[in-house]
């Protein structure tokens, strides 16, 4: 088994293919939906097909769910505000995933924070959000709350009240990772790892030793050393997700803002944790738990332990806490 990552092919300016870990694992990495996409398969002959499938999946996801595209189904839905509207299965699925997150966290992970997110400056693809800016003038407003969203599962009939803008970003990537990993594994009959900006889902054949993943503050190239504390772990099924205040941050006036909003306050969560990683039965549930844990703050450890979700929490000062069976391997 090779111990060196080998980048073998460059297919475009922002896409790379490679061979890593063993002769039988191949990977591709590129940028899409505002983040880094990484795809690993256990059958080298299926990498191109898998990548084509994932590329199509992500293009469809973006067109359905992006709040940064005026032509997305989500944004076009606003002209029918307050009226039941039949939506695509893809948008219905993403909204269903978001509502699952809200329901299971008592609203701590709430998709109705779209307007609040825009208010604090995250109103476009993050790469285009100015890193610095003047103090914000903010308007007193209501956080709409997820219970106002109505989704008729049987008919994909969605009702979003007037004035509410959905932000599906907290859960849609993880849900999409699950969906694509399962679909690719089923169609191509091989093992698949899909990472959408660090929300990781695995499906199908498990490589020898499991899927080896490095857990760290910022998602990056696995062939280069991590910055800050990290763990090297392996999973065999389900998903792994990390939520962190260490990325997607910007300044307005003297304040450092980030993208994880506390729906109870409408502003970035003031958390005891800078990074929380959770392993769960799916990337979606891992993401829901890790995001909620950031917002919960101190009480997150008891909550995660009670749920039996293996987790690794990094405090603002860098101290690492692991629980519910997460291996203690910090480096």
């Amino acid at each position, binding site marked *: 088994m090779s111990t060196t990552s080998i980048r073998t092919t460059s297919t475009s300016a922002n896409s790379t293919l490679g061979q890593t870990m063993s002769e039988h694992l191949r990977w591709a990495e590129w940028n899409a939906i505002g983040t880094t996409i990484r795809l690993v398969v256990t059958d080298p002959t299926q990498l191109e097909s898998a990548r084509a499938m994932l590329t199509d999946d992500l293009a469809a996801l973006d067109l359905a769910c992006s709040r940064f595209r005026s032509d997305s189904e989500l944004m076009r839905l606003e002209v029918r505000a307050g009226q039941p509207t039949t939506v695509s299965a893809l948008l219905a699925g993403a909204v269903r995933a978001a509502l699952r997150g809200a329901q299971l966290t008592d609203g701590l992970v709430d998709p109705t924070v779209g307007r609040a997110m825009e208010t604090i400056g995250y109103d476009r693809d993050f790469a285009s959000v100015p890193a610095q800016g003047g103090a914000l*003038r903010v*308007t007193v407003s209501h956080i709409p709350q997820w219970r106002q969203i109505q989704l008729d599962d049987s008919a994909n009939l969605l009702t979003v009240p007037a004035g509410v803008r959905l932000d599906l970003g907290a859960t849609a990537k993880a849900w999409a990772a699950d969906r694509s990993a399962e679909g690719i594994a089923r169609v191509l009959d091989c093992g698949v790892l899909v990472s959408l900006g660090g929300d990781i889902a695995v499906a199908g054949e498990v490589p020898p030793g*499991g899927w080896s*993943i490095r857990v760290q503050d910022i998602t990056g190239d696995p062939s280069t050393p991590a910055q800050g504390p990290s763990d090297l772990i392996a999973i065999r099924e389900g998903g792994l997700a990390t939520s962190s205040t260490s990325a*997607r941050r910007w300044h307005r006036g003297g304040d450092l803002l980030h993208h994880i909003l506390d729906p109870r306050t409408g*502003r970035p969560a003031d958390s005891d944790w800078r990074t929380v990683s959770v392993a*769960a039965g799916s990337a979606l549930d891992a993401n829901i738990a890790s995001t909620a844990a950031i917002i919960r703050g101190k009480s997150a450890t008891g909550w995660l332990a009670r749920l039996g979700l*293996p987790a690794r929490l990094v405090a603002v000062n860098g101290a690492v806490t692991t629980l519910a069976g997460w291996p203690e391997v910090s480096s």
Partner: protein
Amino acid sequence: MSGSPTSGSARRTARDKGLAWVSAITLGAGAASAIGAVAIAAALPSTSASSGTAASSVSTSSNEDDSGSTLAAAPAPATSNIPPVATTGAS
């Protein structure tokens, strides 16, 4: 709702309207005063009282119940001694 200066009166106004004063994003009190900014207030869940303190206590109490109980668990990760194929972190 209208924009509010960073002041106690704005907090009171928000609370009178059933809103919870949440925070101010400012350049500092002096600068904020100079530019006439800034405040965020947001509605609390309907079950919450109209103050930040009450919201916190209600939320904490609520969060001690069985929320998340149907989140799907998976076998705990194992330690690994082979090179990673991916990383997970903020992005």
